[in-house]
């Protein structure tokens, strides 16, 4: 029986065995070169050590010497949010609706694009609590927004701030039914258009309903430089004028109470005379932005770039060492099928790189978070899934970049050339884009088109169109979505492997 097994031509099972043996041989090759093993340890270690150099701090030192760190408002989904506005409110118990007629939205010193005024239903006056609002914006038309990240544009051609007046008013209505809130708009108060229905999970029995206005700060570019733009900006105010306000509720209506939610700035408030309300507010009700000073979790992984350089050096050497002293001829004598040899090498270097990078990442994230927090920084919350994607994804992009380097080694056969090419295509674009040596637009192109696009997997915070902020690579925002960037890097690695395979097969060993 054993003889028939031995003489049987290579079956799928036999191929598996031979490939396993090949992988084992490559693993032995790898682990018996002390310098390569040390290189992998360095790659893991340097990721951690570099994080310790992070001395960024946040916060102020109080007169009695006690430092007060930065903090952020946390929204209902656990994310950092901005919640600063002025609110003329009264409680609403149970189901009910609020209707108002908006006759003007003006801004000081000017009306910002995302200045907003309208009506809102909010779980409480605590900053960060759940809400749904329907509003007129500076230039973005009528919108229904909810729970900071939600943003629904009213369908069709809607009213604009410039065209709303007493003669051409904008009617707004919010209707609460259980956990869901529906927003309507109307030009005449009779024909209503539904803008959207949203569910605010866990909305309490008694909520606050009322009129609001707010406006994000203005910024005007005064000077441009290679390291970014200098802007002069300042606090801005929006004033919304509303009348025909009616709160339909099972409870009798009470008096309107002015509430400054968050830090709406000085000079905000509301005037009420003869059924006409003028609410002036400043700030924003929106998702958190890089301008708010929080630190994203991936900041603790910037040492990965240093680890990447080490991984590239080891991966290239693992390949080009074959071309010195004719080792490749021995390897090919042992395994004549060149594609399998390359695959075995890739499997070994990819797994080892991933393990080293993951170990470095798992150590540096808690360490970096502790260090950042002790310097008063506020670490922006991210879901467990997002954190896992950031940490495991970082290890994955490092491993794939190492594979890319391995393939470059096979293509170029020159150690210095392959190492330099790999570093220049992965580390340099990242450097140029994130340290803003290049103008921001050019940096975005680099991070979309080069293998460095893979770093997008590290982005834990989302960029929102309803917020005007510096969503730049330097602040941790990439031009491509995390998995799209990851795919670009994979594309480069696959292309390099295809070319390496063709050349390895075509060239004499």
């Amino acid at each position: 029986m054993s003889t028939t097994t031995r003489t049987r031509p290579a079956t799928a099972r036999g191929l598996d065995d031979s490939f396993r043996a090949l992988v084992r041989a490559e693993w032995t090759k790898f682990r018996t070169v002390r310098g390569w093993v040390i290189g992998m340890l360095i790659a893991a270690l340097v990721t951690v050590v570099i994080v310790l150099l992070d001395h960024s701090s946040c916060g102020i030192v109080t007169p009695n010497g006690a430092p007060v760190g930065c903090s952020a408002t946390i929204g209902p989904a656990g994310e950092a949010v901005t919640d600063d506005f002025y609110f003329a409110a009264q409680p609403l118990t149970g189901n009910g609706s609020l209707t108002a007629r908006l006759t003007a939205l003006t801004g000081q010193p000017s009306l910002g694009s995302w200045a907003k005024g309208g009506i809102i239903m909010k779980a409480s006056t605590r900053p960060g609590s759940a809400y749904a609002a329907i509003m007129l914006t500076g230039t973005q038309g009528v919108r229904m927004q909810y729970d900071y990240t939600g943003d629904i544009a009213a369908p069709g051609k809607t009213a604009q701030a410039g065209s709303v007046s007493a003669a051409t008013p904008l009617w707004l209505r919010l209707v609460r039914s259980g956990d869901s809130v529906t927003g309507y708009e109307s030009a005449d108060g009779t024909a209503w258009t539904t803008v959207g229905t949203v569910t605010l999970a866990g909305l309490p029995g008694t909520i606050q309903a009322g009129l609001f206005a707010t406006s994000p700060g203005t910024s005007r570019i005064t000077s441009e430089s290679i390291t970014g733009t200098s802007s002069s900006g300042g606090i801005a105010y929006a004033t919304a004028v509303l009348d025909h306000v009616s709160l339909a509720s099972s409870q009798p209506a009470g008096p309107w109470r002015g509430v400054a939610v968050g830090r709406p700035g000085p000079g905000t408030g509301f005037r009420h005379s003869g059924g006409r309300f003028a609410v002036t507010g400043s700030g924003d009700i929106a998702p958190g932005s890089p301008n708010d000073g929080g630190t994203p979790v991936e900041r603790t992984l910037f040492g990965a770039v240093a680890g990447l350089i080490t991984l590239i050096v080891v991966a290239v050497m693992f390949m080009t060492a074959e071309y010195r002293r004719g080792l490749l001829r021995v390897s090919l004598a042992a395994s004549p099928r060149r594609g399998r040899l390359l695959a075995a090498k890739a499997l070994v270097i990819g797994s080892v790189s991933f393990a080293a990078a993951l170990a470095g990442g798992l150590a540096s994230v808690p360490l970096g978070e502790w260090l950042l927090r002790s310097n008063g920084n506020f670490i922006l919350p991210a879901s467990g899934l997002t954190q896992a994607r950031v940490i495991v994804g970082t290890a994955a992009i490092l491993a794939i970049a190492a594979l890319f380097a391995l393939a470059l080694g096979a293509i170029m056969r020159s150690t210095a050339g392959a190492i330099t090419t790999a570093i220049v295509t992965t580390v340099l674009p990242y450097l140029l884009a994130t340290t803003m040596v290049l103008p921001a637009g050019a940096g975005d192109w680099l991070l979309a088109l080069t293998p460095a696009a893979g770093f997008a997997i590290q982005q834990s915070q989302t960029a929102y169109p309803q917020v005007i902020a510096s969503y730049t690579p330097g602040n941790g925002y990439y031009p491509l979505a995390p998995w799209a960037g990851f795919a670009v890097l994979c594309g480069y690695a696959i292309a390099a492997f295809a070319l390496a395979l063709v050349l390895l097969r075509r060239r004499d060993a």
Partner: protein
Amino acid sequence: MTALAPREASRARTASTAGATLQAEWTKARTAPGTFWLLLAGAGLTVALGLLADAATRCQAAACAIDPAKTALIGVYLGQAVIVIAGVSAIGGEYGNRMILTTLTATPRRSIVLLAKAVILAGLVAVTGVVAVGGSLLAGRLILPGHGIGPARGLPPLSLGDDAVLRAAIGTVLYLVLIALLSLGTAATTRDTATATGTVLALLYLFPIIAAVAGAQAGRHVQQVGPMTAGLAIQATIGLRDLPIGPWAGLGVLAAWAAGALIAGAASLRSRDA
């Protein structure tokens, strides 16, 4: 013993070891098939990245703080990587194929070997640098004023007649030469092309990344000691007061790195068995 009489006719005029070693290293550089193409690629990539930056940079604001020289010469960030290959290969390649044995048998005074390599490398890279800087400035001069970055906004014209631009031009050539010497010294110390390439590129590229996260005060110090961050201060023609380190002082920092690497390389070459 007449057969052993020196053949005067076949001997060159050179009588000193240093001179002969220099000539030998020049012959080596000249007859290595990759040298010319490698240096050409270095100059080409420098100009190409500069062109991209010129094309991507625009200034609409009234006050423009974009440094035209720095923008035009930004390709050095990329071009220097090729110069690193040239510098590292100059001696690392000899360790790779053991030709170093032949070289040191021919010239047992090892410091002279390293010195001759340094001189030849410096000369070749200087020529490359002149081509790269000349091409980059020319491209910048043709493109940047049209993008609002020029004398019309009170910025220095990209002309060698301007003292600051001349300093940036000469300084960038010197920068590339010093990068080559840093690479040579590092390779002589590590005796391994791969390790040396990785080390030098890490020295160049990691400092600015660390500086970006190290906090304002510490970041400034990191920029003052990094070979690239300090060395490229020489490219600044405006806003000199805001630089972490002055132009010539910054180039001095890089020169110190290069000298340190060469001294370490010479020490390693002299003290260790070939």
